[in-house]
Each structure stands twice: as structure tokens, then as C-alpha cells.
């Protein structure tokens, strides 16, 4: 039973750790499927996290915090759009710039407003998203295996976590069953075809970035208002980049994206779990190695274990009408 509990706990933290990855990964999916590379996922998550925690602590409302997180994240997505769609700038440069602006401005504003060394004040109960107990979770708690899985693993996550996993089928549906999705996929492959069909490439790509902004905002809010009780400097810690790796790993498909993010989340959870625990045969593994494991795996996987990942064909190339 001990092992069973350990497994459940590891899987539970897998879910928790993969939520921000999944949101950021889906955010990247909207952007990149429209042909806009977005290396600025990291920055947008960070400003989302900061805006969310700051607004929540000032207005004492988790939902106002979430709204703010999404708004500010959208604003940054629009800056990326303005640079790379309207002005046909280099998308990588714009994305990197956004990451730097985010890393710097969050700390400066945090210090100026809250005087806690760049942190936001610790959020109290009503200012964070607390865990939701699914109906009947307490009742079935003692039913072996199935009941435990339900109450320990599936129940007890925050609203944003449920939204994140709901976004997977929703994104699939939007992409493959709606007019917007058809056009979105088309514009990432051949914007000239979209243009000659009488659809505005610019407006379409801005709308894709809008979706990106909403999702990175959610991811940021999850970090600062669920996982953590406030904003801490550089709290995204490379999750935006891991999400990009997961996106490539998933070949830009929503369901694959979920599995990729769960895998990275699992590695993270495992690393935490195994810290300081001696393993059979190998013995005690250095903490640093376990922490590096997800990143090592990312490199190995991307280096050739996923087959050919074909990015959207027009990705990274600004659309210019004249030849």
C-alpha cells in the first residue's frame, strides 16, 4: 500500500506540475499553427504570474487576479504581434525581447509597489485558487484503488488545472471542427492561399495570438496563484522553453501536447520525489542530476526519438504580399 500511495502521490504532482506546461504549450500551439514562432511564452507567463498575484493581493480577489493576468499577458502577445505581424519583424528577436522585458519589469514593478524585494505579498486563502473537491470524492475515499484514484488523483486540483485539461479537447475541436481552426491551420501553412481566398492574414494571426495570450495568462496565474502563494522573481524558471520543446515533441497537435507535457511533468515530479532517496543498485543520486533529468531527456528526445517533426510551413516567415 505504501508503494501505491507513493505512486498516486507522484502522479498527483505530475498533474500539478504539468498544468503550466500544458497551458503554455497549447498557447504556443495557437501561435505557431498560425505561423508565428513564439519564444516569448516564458515572458508572457511571467508577466501573467506577476499581474495575477499583484492584482489578487491588491483587490483581494482571485478572479480579479486571474483577469489581470490574462489581460497583461494578452497585451504582451499583442506587442509580439505588432512587431512580427504588422511590422514583419523577426519573430525570435521579438520573443526574446519580450522575455527580457518580462524578467526585468516584473521585479522592478514588484519592488516599487510592494517593497518585498520583487515579490508580491503572500496571498491569503480567498486570493488564491484553492483546490476543488470533486463531487463524491470524500464519499469514495476509502474504496480501494478506484476510489483512491478519484479522490487523491483526479479530485483536489484548482480551477485552472481543470481548465488546462479541458483546453485539450477544446483546442482539438477548435482546430479541426471550426472555421477559425481551418483558417488558422491554413495560414500557418500557406498564408498566400488564405490571402487569395479573401481572408485577412493579419487579423487571423492577431486572433491566434489572442488565444496565446489568454492561455499564457492562465499559466502564469496558475504559477503565482495556485502552485505558489505569490509572485517570486523568475518563477517560470524555463517552463516556457520546456513548453516549446513539448510542442515540437507533440508535432503541434493538441492531444500529443497533453501527453508530452504530462511526460515532462512526470519527470519533474520524479526528480522531486527521488531527491535524497537512495535507489536500488545505483545508490544515492545527486539532487542536481535528478533536477537536470527532464532537460537531459528533452535534448535526447528532440535529438531523434520523435521521428520527423514538421513545423507549420510558413512558421517564422513574415507574410509579404509582394514577391
Amino acid at each position: 500500500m505504501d508503494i501505491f500511495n507513493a505512486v498516486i502521490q507522484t502522479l498527483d504532482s505530475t498533474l500539478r506540475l504539468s498544468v503550466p506546461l500544458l497551458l503554455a504549450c497549447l498557447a504556443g500551439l495557437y501561435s505557431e499553427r498560425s505561423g508565428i514562432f513564439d519564444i516569448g511564452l516564458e515572458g508572457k507567463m511571467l508577466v501573467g504570474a506577476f499581474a495575477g498575484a499583484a492584482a489578487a493581493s491588491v483587490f483581494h480577489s482571485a478572479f480579479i487576479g486571474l483577469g489581470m493576468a490574462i489581460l497583461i499577458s494578452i497585451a504582451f502577445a499583442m506587442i509580439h504581434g505588432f512587431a512580427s505581424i504588422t511590422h514583419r519583424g523577426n519573430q525570435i528577436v521579438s520573443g526574446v525581447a519580450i522575455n527580457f522585458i518580462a524578467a526585468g519589469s516584473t521585479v522592478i514593478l514588484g519592488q516599487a509597489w510592494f517593497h518585498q524585494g520583487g515579490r508580491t505579498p503572500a496571498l491569503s486563502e480567498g486570493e488564491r485558487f484553492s483546490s476543488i473537491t470533486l463531487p463524491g470524492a470524500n464519499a469514495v475515499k476509502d474504496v480501494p484503488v478506484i476510489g483512491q484514484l478519484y479522490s487523491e488523483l483526479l479530485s483536489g486540483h484548482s480551477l485552472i488545472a481543470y481548465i488546462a485539461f479541458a483546453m485539450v479537447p477544446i483546442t482539438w475541436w477548435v482546430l479541426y471542427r471550426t472555421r477559425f481552426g481551418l483558417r488558422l491551420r491554413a495560414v500557418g501553412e500557406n498564408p498566400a492561399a488564405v490571402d487569395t481566398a479573401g481572408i485577412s492574414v493579419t487579423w487571423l494571426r492577431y486572433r491566434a495570438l489572442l488565444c496565446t495570450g489568454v492561455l499564457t495568462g492562465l499559466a502564469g496565474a496558475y504559477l503565482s496563484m495556485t502552485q505558489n502563494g505569490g509572485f517570486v522573481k523568475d518563477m517560470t524558471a524555463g517552463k516556457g522553453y520546456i513548453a516549446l520543446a513539448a510542442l515540437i515533441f507533440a508535432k503541434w497537435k493538441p492531444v500529443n501536447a497533453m501527453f508530452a507535457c504530462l511526460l515532462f511533468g512526470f519527470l519533474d515530479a520524479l526528480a522531486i520525489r527521488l531527491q535524497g532517496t537512495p535507489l536500488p543498485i545505483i545508490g544515492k543520486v545527486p539532487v542536481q542530476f535528478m533536477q537536470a533529468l527532464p532537460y537531459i531527456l528533452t535534448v535526447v528526445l528532440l535529438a531523434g526519438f520523435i521521428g520527423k517533426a514538421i513545423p507549420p510551413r510558413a512558421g517564422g516567415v513574415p507574410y509579404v504580399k509582394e514577391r
Partner: protein
Amino acid sequence: MGQAAIELIGINKSFGAVHANRDINLEIPRGTIHGIVGENGAGKSTLMSILYGFYQADSGEIRVNGQPTTIRTSNDAIAAGIGMVHQHFMLVENFSVLENIILGAEGEALLKKSIAKARSELDRLEREYGLEVDPDAIIEELPVGIQQRVEILKALYRGAEILILDEPTGVLTPAEADHLFRILKQLKEQGKTIVLITHKLREIMAITDNVSVMRQGTMVATRQTKQTTVEELAELMVGRRVLLRVEKGAANPGGVKLAVNNLVVRDQRGVTMVDDVSFEVRAGEIVGIAGVAGNGQSELIEAISGIRRAVSGTVLLDGKPIDVTGTADPGELRDRGLAHVPEDRHHVGLVLAFEENENSILGYHDDVRYLKGFLLDVDAIRNDAKSKIDGYDIRPPDCRLRTANFSGGNQQKIVLAREMEQDPGVLIVGQPTRGVDVGAIEFIHKRLIAMRDQGKAVLLISVELDEIRSLSDRIVVMFAGRIVGERGPEASEGELGLLMAGVEQLEAAE
């Protein structure tokens, strides 16, 4: 009838210093097929792009069915009943036919109904015009001829009454082109107006009712097709008399330069594209490989030139084997005197973003002539490029210009100059005049004949049967990956056409 479907009055359009369209006036009667001819860069495509709302004219008026119409975007054009089939298809390659057809004309936010509607509408269009297409096929898996049909269906699905086709046969085989013309004639009978932009005069003569000629941005003449001749049109286009027939003496074949024996090549899907092919090319002759596109010619020359691995078979160059199933690579073959002008100059032959002089040595850049120690000798390269520009009349004569800014014909000359000037013993040429205008075709043909007369072995692959017939000393016909016959240059078009269609194969089977 009688009323003009389209009237263009005083259209002007400039791109920077280039005056692409100058005071264009044009009237296209309804229910006719109207040809617009001109060399590359004469302004045909610009004019049509203005009509389709892709560009906007600097001045001038467009009337559709007598009504002055403002066309700012493609949407306006579609609303005015104008549809366009672009030279480079505007299709999303990994989408299905249906998805491509409804893109931009979905009607409502959810796809389900619009797909169902498109499916039944497609069915109707197919029956009405003989445009058979599998609606669920993925575009990139379809042959170009079918992809073009999808483009036409796209326009018809949007209710186009006026259909503009920009260089529609540039990528088609003769059979596909004939099928297209039948479709166009049928569309005309149904009252549609068709504008055909091309630089192939034979097509103009075969299918159009009227023809307008453009040269250097101006409309120089409009004629009734019945009352003009190919010679007159060519002269109007180029501004001087053009020799349309290739003049050449008898071939004087020498020893075998290139021998291909039992070659088998598969494509990336594992389908056998070249099936047990054997032939030889001698010094001082041009061997043409005729065939409908997709019958293995491309894979054949890719294998011989070291781009694609063959499965089995041998190839001998000057009597010595090329390791076509193993390690043969284009660099090694170049050193051994086999030059290759690839079929697809944009993707294989050139790096469009490079300067002209860089492209003019590409593949030969490790030759000592272009090196100074381990650095490139930029002066030597540019001087070399300049002499090629002079020798091949490449325009504009600027070796520092980005290659993408040259017209198709001049890009082709850059590739030809690069390969021919290395003085190879064997030259493999794929589609030498695809997308090339009349004046340049004449030039390229003369050069190929000159190569032959210098005693080189030339292997020519072209989907233009005319080209094969006028250049080749021997014609080998491929069908379904096999060689189905060999004929002399005197073989009639009909005879070759039957071979290309595999008719004899079928008869033999019965």
C-alpha cells in the same frame, strides 16, 4: 453576348522605379476565351493581380459587366464573380481537397455543414464540367494537373463567372493540358469568360477567341485569333523577329558516354518509379526522354546525377561505373564530367537568396579557380559570373543582384551557364525551358544544339513534347517507369502521344 465582361481603362501600376503597367486598356467580351501573351516581366501577371485585388492600380478604372467596380481585395474580386487560378497554386498542401475548396467560403463558424454542402456542390461541378477529383485526397499527394483542377473548382465553388488562369500549362503535360483545354471550352460553352495568360503561342492559337499582346508594361496589340499567326504574335511580344524552329544539322554520334543498365529506383513511399530501365547516350547526340510527368523521368535523372539512391542497376560514365546504389554524390559526378541542370531550378538548382555570382559557381565553389587559399576568391568569382552574364545574355547584367530578382528565363540561364561552362562530357538537362519566355527558349535551344555539336552527350528530359521532338536525335519514351519505345526525331506527335499514354502496352497485354 456582346457586352464586355471586363473592361480595363487606363490602368497604371508602378513598383518603385519599375512601371509594370502603363495605360492599359483592354476589353474582354463575355463568353469568350481571351489570351494575354507577353514575355516574362511584360506585366501580364501584374495586370491580372490588379484585377484580382492582389495589388491595387495607381490609376485607372475596372468595369465588370459594364459596372465600374472597385476591387481592393481578393474578396471584392470574388464578389464581382472573378476567380483566379494562380501560376503557383494557392493551395494548402497538407489539407484535403475539400478543406482547400471551402477555405474562405465556409459560410458558418462550424465546419460540419459547410463540408457537407461543399461535398454535394463538388459532386455537381464534377458532373457538369468533367472535373473529377477525390474530395478527401490530400493536395500534396495529387499530381499537379489535379491540383490545378482543385484551383479551378475553388473558383467555380465561389461562383466565378470570369476565370483568370495564369500560365496554367507551365506545369502540365500535353495530355493534362489538353484535358484542361477541354474543360475551358466546356466552361466557355456554359457562358463563363476565361482569361488565359501564357507565353505559349501554340496554346493561344489552339483555344482562344481573341488575343492581346503585352510588351514592357504596355498593351501593344489585340487581335482576333483567327486573323493572326504565331509568327506575328511572337514578333509583337519580343519586338523583333523570332526563330521558332530549331535549326540543327544531322547528329554525328561518337562513342558511348553514358550507359544505364537495368536501373531500378523507388520513391520515398517505396513505389517503384523507374523499373528496369536501360539506354545509352553517345557523344555528339541529344537523347530526349518523353513521357507524361510522374512516369519516372524525374527519379531517373535524380538517380543518374547522384541525388537519389537507386535500388539496383548500373550506370557507366565514360565506361567507368557510377555507384548509383551507394555512395555516388553530385560533387563526385561533377568532377567526373557529368553536369546536371535540375528540373526544379527554384528548389534544387539555385539558392534564390544568394547573389547571382554566388549561384553561378554553386557546386563548383571548391574548384581552385574560385579559391584563394581556403577563402573564396571573390574577384575571380565575380569576373567569372560577369563573363557568363555576357555569354548567356543574362539580364539584368548585374552579378551582385539577388537571384530571386531575376525572371524565370534568366534564372534558368544562370543555371545553364554554370553547368555548361564547366565543359562537362555529359549534360543532363531537366525541363530546360519550363517557365521561360520565347526569346530565351530560342537561346537555350541553340546552346543545347551547340553542346551537341561540340561532341557532348546530352540527356534531355522535358514534358514539352515539341521541345523533345525538335531537339532530340533519339527519343526514348517512358511510361509507368519503363521504357516503352524508342523513336527517331521524325516520329509524329500522335505516335509519341500514344506511346506516352501507354497504349501499346495495353494492346500488347490484350
